[in-house]
C-alpha cells in the first residue's frame, strides 16, 4: 500500500477538476469544486447528504452538464457531454441503486451499456468469466428482479469492468451490503488498484474510508472544505470536517428488568404470501416488543422488511387477527387507523407519497395521519377542521424537531428529504404513542439530524413505550437498540441482546446460511 501512496506524489493525475460549478435554480449544488485523482489510487469523496457529491459525479459521468469549470483527462481538457463520452474516455460508474432494469436479465442489462453489437450470449459468457475471475459469481441468465441487492451490485460492477475503464466511480457502494459482502468488495477494489486503475469512492461511512482509501476530498454545502489522508485522521475528525461542527453522540442507558415489562407489541406466527412475483413471502414471524425497549431489525434490503412493515402497520391485513397484537388486543384485522387508535404509530420508509402527501402542506399532512387519533383536538363540531389548532401543532413539531424550511407551512415536497423525515418522525412522536414502528428512520438524513431522531426514539422507549426500528444501517441499530433481530429471506431471527451482538454475528445472520460467508468469517476470526 505504501507504493500506491508514492505513486500519488509522482503527479501523474488521471483526472483533474478545476472550479466545477453546478447551479439548480437558486441552489449552488457544486461551487468551484477542485479534485485531483492520481493513477492507481482509491480516492474518497466525503460529505453529508446534500453536500454535492452526487451532483459532482454526475457531471464527471456526463449525466449533468456543469455551468462552469474545467475537466482534464490525462492532462487534456475534455467536455463530458453524455455518459457515452465518459465511457469512451474510460470512466465507468457503479450507481447506487437506480440503473438496472428489473424486468431484464443480468446479461441484457450488461449488453445495454456496451456499445458493441456482439450477441447477448457472448456478452453473457464474458460476464460470467470476468465475474468468477474477480470472485463475484454471477448468473447472467437470472432476472434482475429476482436478485438480492448485493447481487445486483455485482452486475453493476461487472458491467462497469467489461468497459475496461481507467477510472471507476462507486456511489455509496456498501450501503446495501452485509459486512461480509462489503469485505469482498474491498478485496475487489484493492485488486483493481493493484492493476493500476483509479477509483473514486463515495461514502459517508468513515471507518471503511479510513480502511481502503488513499486520499480524501471533503465536500460541505457544495464546496471543497479539505483534502486529507484518511489514514491519518480519526473517524471523529473526518466527521467534523463533513458536518462543520461536533456531532452529538447518542446516549442510551441500559434498561433493567425488561423481561417483566408488559408486552405492547406482539407478533405471533405472522406469515404472508408474496403479493407480487418480485416480493418476499413472510414465514412464521414471532416477536415481542416490551414497554421501555428498542428492538432493531437488521437485514439486507429486500429480504421482507417492507412486507413486514406493511403487515404490522395495517397497510395489509392479516387473516389471523391474533398474529399482530397491540397493547394486548388483537389487531390483525384492523386497518391503519384502527391500529393507531390502539396507541400505535408508524413511520414508513418512503417519505413522499407514503409518509407524506407531496403536494400538501405540512399541517395538512399532520391532519391526514392524526385526524382519527386526535379527532377531538383537530376536528370541531360538524366535521369542520380547526385549522388554527392544526397549524399550531405543526409549528410545535417543526420547532421540536428543528425542521429547516423556506416558508411557514410549506408543501411536503418542498422540504429536503432529511427535513421531511424529521417532520414525519416528529409528527408521530408528538402523540407519545405507546407503540412506535419505524422503517429506515434516518435514511438520507444528515448526521446531526440522524442523532436527533435516534435520541428521540430512545427517549420515547425510556418513557414506557415499545419501539421497533427496521434499518439497513447497522451502526444505527447498534447505537439505539436494546436487542437486534435479523430478517433474512422473509424469516426473522430471535432478537440478540445488544450486549451479546457483534457486527460479525449480525452480519452472518444477514447473509443467511450461505456457506461462503461462514468460511470467510473463519478466516478473519
Amino acid at each position: 500500500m505504501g507504493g500506491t501512496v508514492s505513486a500519488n506524489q509522482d503527479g501523474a493525475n488521471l483526472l483533474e477538476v478545476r472550479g466545477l460549478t453546478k447551479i439548480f435554480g437558486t441552489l449552488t449544488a457544486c461551487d468551484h469544486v477542485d479534485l485531483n485523482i492520481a493513477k492507481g489510487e482509491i480516492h474518497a469523496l466525503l460529505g453529508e447528504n446534500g453536500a454535492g457529491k452526487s451532483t459532482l459525479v454526475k457531471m464527471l459521468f456526463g449525466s449533468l452538464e456543469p455551468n462552469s469549470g474545467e475537466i482534464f483527462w490525462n492532462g487534456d481538457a475534455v467536455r463530458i457531454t453524455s455518459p457515452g463520452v465518459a465511457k469512451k474516455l474510460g470512466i465507468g460508474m457503479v450507481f447506487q441503486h437506480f440503473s438496472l432494469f428489473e424486468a431484464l436479465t443480468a446479461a441484457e442489462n450488461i449488453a445495454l451499456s456496451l456499445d458493441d453489437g456482439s450477441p447477448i450470449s457472448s456478452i453473457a459468457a464474458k460476464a460470467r468469466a470476468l465475474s468468477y475471475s474477480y470472485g463475484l459469481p454471477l448468473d447472467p441468465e437470472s432476472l434482475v428482479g429476482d436478485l438480492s441487492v448485493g447481487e445486483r451490485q455485482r452486475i453493476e460492477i461487472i458491467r462497469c469492468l467489461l468497459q475496461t475503464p481507467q477510472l471507476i466511480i462507486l456511489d455509496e457502494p456498501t450501503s446495501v451490503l452485509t459486512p461480509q459482502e462489503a469485505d469482498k468488495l474491498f478485496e475487489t477494489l484493492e485488486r483493481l488498484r493493484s492493476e493500476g486503475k483509479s477509483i473514486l469512492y463515495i461514502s459517508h461511512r468513515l471507518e471503511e474510508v479510513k480502511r481502503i482509501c488513499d486520499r480524501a476530498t471533503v465536500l460541505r454545502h457544495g464546496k471543497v472544505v479539505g483534502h486529507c489522508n484518511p489514514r491519518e485522521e480519526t473517524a471523529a475528525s473526518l466527521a467534523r470536517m463533513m458536518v462543520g461542527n461536533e456531532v452529538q453522540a447518542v446516549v442510551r442507558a441500559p434498561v433493567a428488568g425488561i423481561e417483566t415489562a408488559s408486552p405492547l407489541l406482539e407478533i405471533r406466527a405472522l406469515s404472508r404470501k408474496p403479493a407480487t412475483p418480485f416480493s418476499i413471502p413472510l414465514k412464521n414471524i414471532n416477536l415481542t416488543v416490551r414497554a421501555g425497549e428498542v428492538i432493531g431489525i437488521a437485514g439486507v434490503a429486500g429480504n421482507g422488511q417492507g412486507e413486514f412493515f406493511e403487515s404490522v402497520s395495517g397497510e395489509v391485513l392479516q387473516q389471523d387477527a391474533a398474529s399482530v397484537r397491540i397493547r394486548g388486543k388483537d389487531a390483525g384485522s384492523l386497518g391503519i387507523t384502527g391500529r393507531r387508535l390502539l396507541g400505535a404509530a408508524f413511520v414508513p420508509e418512503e417519505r413522499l407519497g407514503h409518509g407524506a402527501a407531496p403536494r400538501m402542506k405540512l399541517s395538512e399532512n399532520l391532519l391526514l395521519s392524526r385526524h382519527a387519533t386526535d379527532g377531538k383536538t383537530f376536528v370541531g363540531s360538524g366535521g369542520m377542521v380547526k385549522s388554527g389548532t392544526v397549524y399550531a401543532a405543526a409549528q410545535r413539531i417543526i420547532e421540536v424537531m428543528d425542521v429547516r424550511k423556506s416558508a411557514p407551512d410549506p408543501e411536503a415536497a418542498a422540504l429536503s428529504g432529511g427535513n421531511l423525515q424529521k417532520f414525519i418522525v416528529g409528527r408521530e412522536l408528538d402523540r407519545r404513542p405507546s407503540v412506535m414502528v419505524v422503517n429506515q428512520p434516518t435514511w438520507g438524513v444528515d448526521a446531526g439530524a440522524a442523532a436527533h431522531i435516534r435520541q428521540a426514539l430512545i427517549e420515547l422507549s425510556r418513557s414506557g413505550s415499545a419501539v421497533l426500528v427496521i434499518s439497513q444501517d447497522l451502526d444505527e441499530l447498534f447505537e439505539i437498540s436494546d436487542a437486534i433481530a435479523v430478517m433474512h429471506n422473509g424469516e426473522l431471527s430471535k432478537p440478540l441482546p445488544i450486549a451479546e451482538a457483534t457486527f460479525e454475528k449480525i452480519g452472518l445472520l444477514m447473509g443467511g446460511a450461505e456457506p461462503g460467508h461462514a468460511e470467510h468469517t473463519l478466516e478473519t476470526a
Partner: protein
Amino acid sequence: MDITVNILLTIATAATPLLIAAIGELVVERSGVLNLGVEGMMIMGAVGGFGAGYLTGSPWIGLLAAIIMGAAFSLLFAVMTLSLATNQVATGLSLTLLGLGLSGMIGTSFVGQPGVRLPNLDIPGLSSIPVVGKLLFGQDPIFYISIALTAAVMWFLFRTRTGLTLRSIGDSHTSAHALGIKVIRYRYLAVIFGGACAGLAGGHLSLVYTPQWVENMSAGRGWIALALVVFASWRPWRVLAGAYIFGAVWIGQLHAQAFGIPVPSQLLSSLPYLATVVVLVLISRNKRLTMMNTPASLGQPFVPDR
C-alpha cells in the same frame, strides 16, 4: 364450404385493422409512452386514405396518405408529451377528440362519394386452389402487411439490440438515461411508428373494409386496439390472438343476429368484448410473466435533468 371460407375471410378483414393499430400501440407502450389517441389517429388515417384515393384515383396513394396522416398526427402527441412533458392521458384523450372532429370537417365533401378499393391479391393458379387458395393467396394486401408487421415487431423487440434498448426504456427511463440512452429520441420514433400503424389501420377501413367515407367510421376500434394491448400483456402474438378472437366473435354474432337467434341483440353485440377479455385474461394468468412484460414506466413523463 364456400360459406366457411367467406366467413373466415370476413373475420380476417375485421381483425386486420385491430391488429395493426394494436401492434403499433404495443411498440409505443413498450417504450413507456401511453398514447390514448389511437382512435383519433385511426380516423385521421381513414379520412386521409379515402381523400387521397378519391382525388387521385389510386388506392395505393391512398394507403400511403393514410400512413403519413397517422404518423403526422402522432407527431403532435409526441411533441406535447415528450418535448413539453404534458400529461400523456390527457393529451391522448384530446388527440382522439381532435381527430374525430377534424376528420369530420375534412371529410364533409367526401360523404356519399364512391371510393376506391385496394385490389385483393390474386396469384394465378395459387389463388384458385380450393379453400386454402383464397385464404392464403387471395386477400387484401393490408392483411399480409399486418401478419408481416406482427412477426417483424416480435423479432425487433426480442431479438435485436435496438429492441432491447426500447424495452429497457419502458422498464425504467431514469436507468436508461443514466446509461446514456437517448430516451426521448427512442420514444419519438416509437410514437411515430405507432401513429403510422394507426393510420394504416384507418386506411384499411376506408380503402378495404368499406371503401367510402363515413363520419366516425372507426367506431371505437382504436379503443379496442388499446384494450387488446393491455389484455395481451404487451406481447405481440397475444395481440394477434386477441384481434382474431375479437374478429371471430364479432362476425359470429352478426351471423347469429341475422339468423334471428332468440337472444337480445345487445347481449350478442357485447359478446366480442367479453370473449376477448376472458380469453386474454386466461392466457395472461402467469403473474410473473405479466410483470416481466409490463412496461414499468408506462405513462410517466420523463424530464431529464441537465
